[in-house]
């Protein structure tokens, strides 16, 4: 065992010396390889973390949201719907929600106005999201006026700013008292934008949705699972889009790496001949080259992955943010909690390290099995 370990140490020593001797070639290869892993890992880490985060956020959302449709468009829920829903068995909790969008021409951005039921806000006061704090320079105690769609000007005092930890969902929020909200958007008493409800038995969600459709034929129940699926497909789509854009680069790298790995220089062939002639077995030569391929690909993988991790979780994925986060004027400023998926690492490892190492071995095997006497004739 000790001899085996010593032998491997010698092989690694020689491999490192070999790598150092062809510094320019190997550093170039390593840099491009690392960059590729970095880009792929950044996309994978970012979309995965977003997906996990979205699932966490949506986990606390209602199981069913009911909207009313008129001519296929979303309309206000009129009075009486809550009572009708209350009579459907299985519905545990329900509430009418008030929310709407407001375009602020000053910063050319849309805000989301809401009248929360679980937060007490005095009339004339608002609580704003962190993006508003940044874009309009708002702080607690400041006043701000919004012009309603009727043309009236409404002035509010900022009572508080929402914490940055909830920024993914609250960046553009403006929370206000229910009466203020109804006055601003001219929504009469008893009307809501939609109804959120929870179902006692999660297995019964679909049945409750069917009952809702039967009882209120002009409504559209939206299930939480469907929202989750939509989010997942959006992230998948973005990831796919990014990877499609990168595919040319990946292909170019593939060709470059294959050419570098598969093509042995005359100098390398000569060296293999010398090593065989002085007593190295074919196996030793292959192992040495295997170490060489593994060291390059593993280093590139580790450096690329760590750089991607730092890029995504500590520098906000600044390079791909616009593509991966989607379009918005008020980007939420949030840092994703670090999240690593074992399967994702394994997949990335398999598609970057394994092909390169294999590509290195094929020509080496061919060169290493040539007769050692060729060196005598060189």
């Amino acid at each position, binding site marked *: 065992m*000790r*001899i*085996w*370990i*010593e*032998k491997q*140490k*010698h*092989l690694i*020593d*020689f491999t490192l*010396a070999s790598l*150092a*001797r062809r510094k320019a070639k190997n550093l170039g290869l390593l840099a491009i390889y690392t960059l590729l892993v970095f880009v792929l890992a950044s996309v994978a880490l970012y979309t995965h973390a977003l997906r996990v985060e979205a699932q966490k956020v949506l986990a606390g959302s209602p199981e069913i949201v009911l909207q009313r449709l008129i001519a296929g468009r979303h309309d206000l829920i009129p009075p009486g719907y809550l009572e009708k829903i209350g009579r459907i068995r299985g519905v545990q909790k329900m509430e009418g929600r008030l929310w709407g969008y407001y375009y602020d021409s000053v910063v050319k951005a849309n805000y989301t106005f809401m009248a929360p039921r679980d937060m007490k806000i005095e009339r004339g006061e608002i609580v704003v999201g962190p993006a508003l704090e940044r874009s309009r320079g708002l702080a607690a105690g400041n006043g701000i006026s919004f012009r309603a769609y009727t043309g009236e000007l409404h002035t509010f005092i900022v009572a508080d700013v929402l914490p940055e930890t909830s920024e993914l969902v609250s960046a553009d929020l403006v929370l206000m008292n229910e009466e203020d909200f109804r006055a601003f958007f001219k929504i009469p008493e008893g009307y809501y934008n939609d109804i959120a409800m929870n179902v006692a038995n999660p297995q019964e969600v679909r049945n409750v949705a069917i009952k809702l459709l039967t009882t209120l034929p002009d409504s559209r129940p939206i299930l939480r699972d469907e929202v989750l699926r939509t989010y997942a497909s959006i992230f998948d789509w973005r990831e796919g889009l990014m990877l499609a854009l990168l595919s040319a680069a990946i292909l170019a790298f593939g060709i470059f790496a294959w050419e570098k790995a598969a093509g042995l220089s005359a*100098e390398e062939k*000569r*060296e293999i*001949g*010398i*090593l*065989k*002639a*002085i*007593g*190295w*077995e*074919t*196996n*030793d030569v292959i192992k040495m080259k295997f170490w060489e391929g593994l060291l390059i690909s593993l280093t590139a993988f580790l450096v690329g992955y760590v750089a991607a991790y730092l890029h995504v979780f500590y520098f906000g994925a600044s390079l791909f943010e616009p593509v991966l986060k989607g379009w918005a004027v008020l980007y939420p400023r949030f840092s994703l909690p670090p999240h690593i998926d074992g399967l994702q690492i394994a997949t990335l490892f398999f598609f970057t390290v394994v092909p390169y190492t294999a590509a290195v071995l094929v020509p080496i095997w061919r060169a290493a099995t040539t*007769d*050692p*006497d060729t*060196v*005598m*004739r*060189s």
Partner: protein
Amino acid sequence: MAGLFMIELKGIRKAFNQGKHNEYWALDGIDLTIPAQQVTALKGPSGSGKTTLLTILGCLARPTEGRVRLKGEDISGLPERFLTEIRRKTFGFIFQQFNLVRGLSAIENIILPAYPEGQPRKDLLEKAEALLAGVNLGHRRDAKVEWLSGGEQQRVAICRALINDPAILIADEPTANLDTKLSKEFLGILEKLAGQGRTIILTSHDPLVVESSVVDRVVTLRDGRIVDQT
């Protein structure tokens, strides 16, 4: 070991491109014995088969026909793996072009043949330093081999051939790239190695080598056959 045959060749034939239109028999019926602890020189004109014979003696190649015995044991049919082990443990090679690995230092080149043996690096370095000192090259220990002169490169190649302490040394045209002064220095080293009881087989055109007193026996080849043994 003195007085015994180190290597015995019986009916050796070696073909290149066998079965093809350009088939060529480099050796054609060689019967030869190499005595232990002696210096044997193979001489002959270009194309006479000296180097091919040397590769068969040194287990670098297998004969197409015939038997090779090393210390009485038939090694002709051994698989490549075993031949490699025999080559590493029994033979040391000094090539005409030295065949050192460029970019590595002298000492790193010397310890290369010992890597497959798995000896600790520290021991190998000590041994290599002693060998370098033996050929007055201790001061060039860490010099890259491409910076060394021809004579220095050959001395590094000699040290590399000796790192596994082989019983047999094989040298192909050892003075072909050396001037007279360096050739004489080489013969001096050869004498020292022969004095240590090693069996030495070399090929040479060079009268300085072939006619040297260090050489015990000269085998002359022509057209793949032995024409004279003195």
